[in-house]
């Protein structure tokens, strides 16, 4: 069943599809997902994954053309979820302070590092948008 390209861990493809839909932030047809993910995935594989995700309730779908377009479903209590996420980040922030007390160099990028990384990205994707 595995397609061309290196092996994925179990559940790996489902996660990638979810991440893809989340990144797009709009309904996507299976063909679009397939094109976006690339790496030699067969259409049927993407289709199957999307249906499985739909069955699990992770994505919603609406009729589009002859098939469906899929969107990442916000969890029912989206507001509450985002509050929880915020609380989690607060918690991790607190960690940061304490980790600081225990003295570790927090890897804030130095300007030199930033230049180096930006240069690397510039070489890699000449033309593509750079994160501002």
């Amino acid at each position, binding site marked *: 069943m595995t397609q061309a390209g290196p092996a994925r861990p179990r559940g790996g493809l489902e996660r990638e599809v979810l991440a893809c839909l989340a990144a797009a932030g709009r309904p996507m047809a299976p063909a679009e997902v397939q094109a976006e993910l690339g790496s030699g995935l067969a259409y049927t594989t993407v289709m199957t994954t999307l249906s499985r995700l739909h069955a699990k309730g992770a994505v919603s779908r609406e009729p589009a053309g002859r098939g469906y377009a899929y969107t990442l479903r916000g969890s029912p209590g989206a507001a509450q979820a985002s509050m*929880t996420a915020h609380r989690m980040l607060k918690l991790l922030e607190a960690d940061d302070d304490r980790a600081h007390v225990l003295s570790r160099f927090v890897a804030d990028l130095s300007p030199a590092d930033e230049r180096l990384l930006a240069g690397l990205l510039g070489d890699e994707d000449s033309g593509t948008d750079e994160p501002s």
Partner: protein
Amino acid sequence: MILLGLVPVAASVMLALASGGLSRHLAPATAVPLLTLLALATSLATGLALCLAAFGAVAQLPFLADRAGWSVGVLAPGNLEPGWGVLPGAIAAALLTAALIFTIRAARDLARAGRACRQLGGLDRLVITHDDRPTAYSVPTRAGAIVVSTGMLRLLSADERRALLAHEDSHLRHRHALYVLLADLAAAANPLLRPLAGRVRLAVELQADEDAVAEIGDRRAVARALARASLAVSAAGPGPRGSLAAPAAGSGPRGSLAMAQTDACARIRALTEPRHRRRRSWAVAAALLLILASSTTALTMTWAMHQRIEAAQLVYAQSHSPSPLTPAAGRPAPGLAPPLQPTGAAD
């Protein structure tokens, strides 16, 4: 005794200075368990040496010696004077307290992170938060979860997203958080080991990077994902340092492991210049030797102290027995002690 106790201290100093050189020559998959074990062994041995030094000194206090029934004359040679025992005792107490506090906080933070993670739900161990700020981290609960914000996902291309997911998945699969916690605990109990704990943290990231490379088969894509994520997190962070960039940066030690940020440049160098990372078997041998040195020292010291106490009890019992054969009651003359001293405690 005292000199023996300096072995783990010397090992700690050596590691404080040379942990970078040591870990650079280890493959990440080897470095993670080996350096963690090294940190734990050294930390335990140092703590034990301090405790034994303090004990050896305090045990000579007359009222304590009389209570416990051991001869001060036997205990004294090779041990610190009671007055000096305060020093190792205080250090041991402070470090033990630090380790205890670290453990309690880590346990509490882990529990909180786990609770928050359960509330977030998610599917297939992936939690996507609808948030424009770029964040990505994994939460080491029993099932484990990867938390990524839509802001982060939007920045990355499909293969970079795959690299990020594979990287975080590797953290969860290898239980990296456990190693990092243990190494940090060792460093809490022995601050000289902080650089080594930092190396464990880096090794964990390097291993996850290599796992991501193995999964997607493209070193450049992993490096790109890392660079993009680091830059974005760095750019999002200039406000009060606590914006969402910070958790990614500092969460490594406790709650979760961040995708970007820890030693980003060292990791990117490892990804883009893999040939510069030579593996040397002497590094493994050196690490194993240090582990061995620390643990045998700890065992020898404990054993020697045990022998010494038994000898001291014997002398005390002899000198306090009502038998007329015993030459003198009361404290034994110092001359009585040497023949009974255990040979292992030469110092």
